[in-house]
């Protein structure tokens, strides 16, 4: 396997070709926040929290580290002032919709107490982990997105779910916004299940 050398936050890092910047950083002990990433799933790039600055041939730009592949000679900065500002704003937007565990601790890390936006909790933050897990890992497609723009939603398609869902409930603990369980109940007509995990 070909080895790639790059610099992440001043550290010399070696990684295999085909590794994402996020993967390379985490392996080197550099923490980059994410909400829509899962190592078992294809990169999605929706939460934008994992944005990092890359510098190549003197040119700087921001990229989603969950998807950008490590390149030789790249200089990566994961916590510039600008990145902190963008992450804070992204978290503030999300905080208006959800304030559960992972979001709360990230908000704290970025010095956010409360969102300046109209609070409308709890809402699904459309990270897509449940949808992608069901599609990519379980290959069942029981959950899906409907609508687009600000009306986009995650749903369990009632009839389809009843016949196709393997009832593995593996999607439930993936949810960072704590809304999946109620969607799950809504999707299965008249068969409420006990939550598999009390934290949800």
């Amino acid at each position: 396997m070909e080895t790639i050398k790059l610099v992440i936050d001043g550290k010399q890092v070696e990684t295999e070709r085909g590794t994402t910047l996020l993967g390379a950083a985490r392996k080197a002990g550099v923490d980059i926040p994410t909400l829509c990433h899962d190592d078992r799933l294809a990169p999605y790039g929706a939460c934008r929290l994992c944005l990092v600055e890359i510098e190549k041939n003197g040119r700087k730009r921001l990229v989603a580290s969950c998807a950008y592949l490590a390149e030789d000679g790249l200089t990566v900065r994961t916590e510039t002032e600008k990145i902190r500002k963008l992450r804070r704003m992204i978290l503030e937007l999300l905080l208006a919709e959800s304030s559960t565990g992972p979001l709360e601790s990230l908000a704290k890390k970025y010095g956010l107490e409360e969102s300046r936006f109209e609070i409308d909790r709890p809402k699904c933050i459309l990270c897509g982990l449940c949808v992608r897990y069901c599609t990519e890992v379980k290959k069942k497609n029981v959950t899906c997105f409907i609508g687009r723009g600000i009306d986009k939603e995650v749903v369990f398609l009632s009839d389809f779910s009843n016949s196709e869902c393997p009832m593995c409930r593996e999607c439930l603990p993936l949810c960072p916004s704590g809304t999946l369980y109620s969607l799950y109940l809504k999707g299965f007509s008249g068969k409420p299940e006990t939550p598999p995990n009390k934290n949800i």
Partner: protein
Amino acid sequence: MSKLKSAAELKKFRQTILDGRDAGKVCVTICLGTGCLACKGDEVHKAFVEEIRKQGLEGKVDIRRTGCHGFCERGPLVVIFPKEICYLKVTPGDVPEIVEKTLIEDKVVDRLVFADEDGRKIVHEGDIPFYKHQNRIILGPNRLVDPGIIEDYIALGGYSALAKALFVMTPVEVLDEVKKSGLRGRGGAGFPTGTKWETTRNAPGEPKYVIVNADEGDPGAYMNRSVLEGNPHSVLEGLIIGAYAIGSHEGFVYVRQEYPLAVANLTTALEQARELGLLGDHILGSEFSFDVTIHRGAGAFVSGESSALMTAIEGRVGEPRLKYIRTAVSGLWEKPTNLNNVETWANVPAIINKGAAWFNGIGTKSSKGTKIFSLVGNVKNTGLVEVPMGMTLRQVIFDIGGGIAGDKKFKAVQTGGPSGGCIPAECLDLPVDFDELDKAGSMMGSGGMIVMDEGTCMVDTARYFVKFLSEESCGKCVPCREGLKQTLLILDRICSGQGREGDLELLEELGEVMTEASLCALGTTAANPLLSTLKYFRSEYEAHIKEKRCPACVCKELIRYYIEPAKCQACLLCAKNCPTGAITGEKGAIHVIDQAKCTKCGACLEVCPSRFSAVIRISGRPVPPPVAAGTPVQRRK
């Protein structure tokens, strides 16, 4: 029809067409683009067929159904060749007179020709100011071609560029010619076309695909639609040449299902091109084979974004994907894919025929050639205009567009579609090219140009575009989806008089996160209408927030309708037309609006005779106390 098997056969075929046509023969050309069709152009066509039959002129006069000529404001348009007599706003009722006077007596029907502001009549199409300042490389042939008849296109020299590319040039020479021409993508981003072609050509992986992006979805924009409807072969020829240069054998046209005429005309064009051997196996007898599939879009604005469009062709939801590997390298089914806009492809045949140097001579240093704009909004001459890059906004809006309708004052022009910016009067002398528009906080986009007069509220305008984008965003990434949602909520508040101190700074922060952190170009440009209006019209936002005043008197919650007692002549018109019965008044007595009942529909303002102009809108100050019921009017002298 048998297949043409060489360049010589194409040339011969063209000569046969030309020999069968008499250039001096009278031809009635009727615009049947979407605009003129909506104004009953089809009935005008029927009337001509009928009247020409009645007058026994069949065979002596040709009738041609064409695509959009561009001067949509004055449609349906009829141009009579060879004298190029242009009649405007023709109704079926005008047809017998045109046939008798012009076709039989060789006279001009004066009342149907263009008259300038001094009343001078202009008979020839090309002399009308709207057309005179244009350079119509792409749109020009529209009026000479029936999109359903391939012979019309070939008669103009159509497919000769393809023959030249196939038999005189190597693929690399074609590519170099396009590179040298300086052609940049007309879809919005302005990426150098030749460089993009080269990337796909050199990218590893087979097959390679080429795509026409005809998913035009900007409100008010219809440039691509008119080219596809009116001259589909020009796009197809460009596409085949591009495929040859790139080494692709399979192409797609992604066109909106909402453009039925474009789909129909394109389908016909493909069939005719196949019949003549211009598409399919061994094109014109060469070694090169290529074919095209039409993919009809399901109506999502975001599917115009290249990666979303490719996802949609693959049969999945049209959502942009992370493209750190460019679609030119890994696009459709992860194969090298070159996507260009309708207008970009349509430029290619002319570049191959006339050469890069010719194309290079048109436009500015960084933007070559012409650009089609759909000039709409509060402008006198609504329509499609094609101008050399570098023409100023003032020339486009005032010389071609004829200035502001109703002789009101110009306020702003929004270029580049919903995610373009609003440019104020002080920037009217800006030359229109990719880079200058970017610098002004707007963009070229695919060529939308919405002109706004002084009666436009810029906060409300920003809100309109933000609302459009919030519904048309795919909703995948947080900055775009949530950023647009919160921006819309704040703009809604400001427009309804609930704006707060700090809102503008918060909007700017939102604009920054959308621009810097969004996944695709829809998100990174979504803040343009907001940020450009904040930049150029900040005082208007401040008036809404601090004084609860809408300076243009547009935002309903911030205005009141009021009848000025000194001007009211007690004509009863407003009282009769008020849907809520909010206006009291009798003959001889000043009318009064009951503010509690008024729903601000504006009917009173519309019906109040302009010689009185007694109804006004008030914003930012209290409505004066009403006059006592029955107060007699002050008669005007």
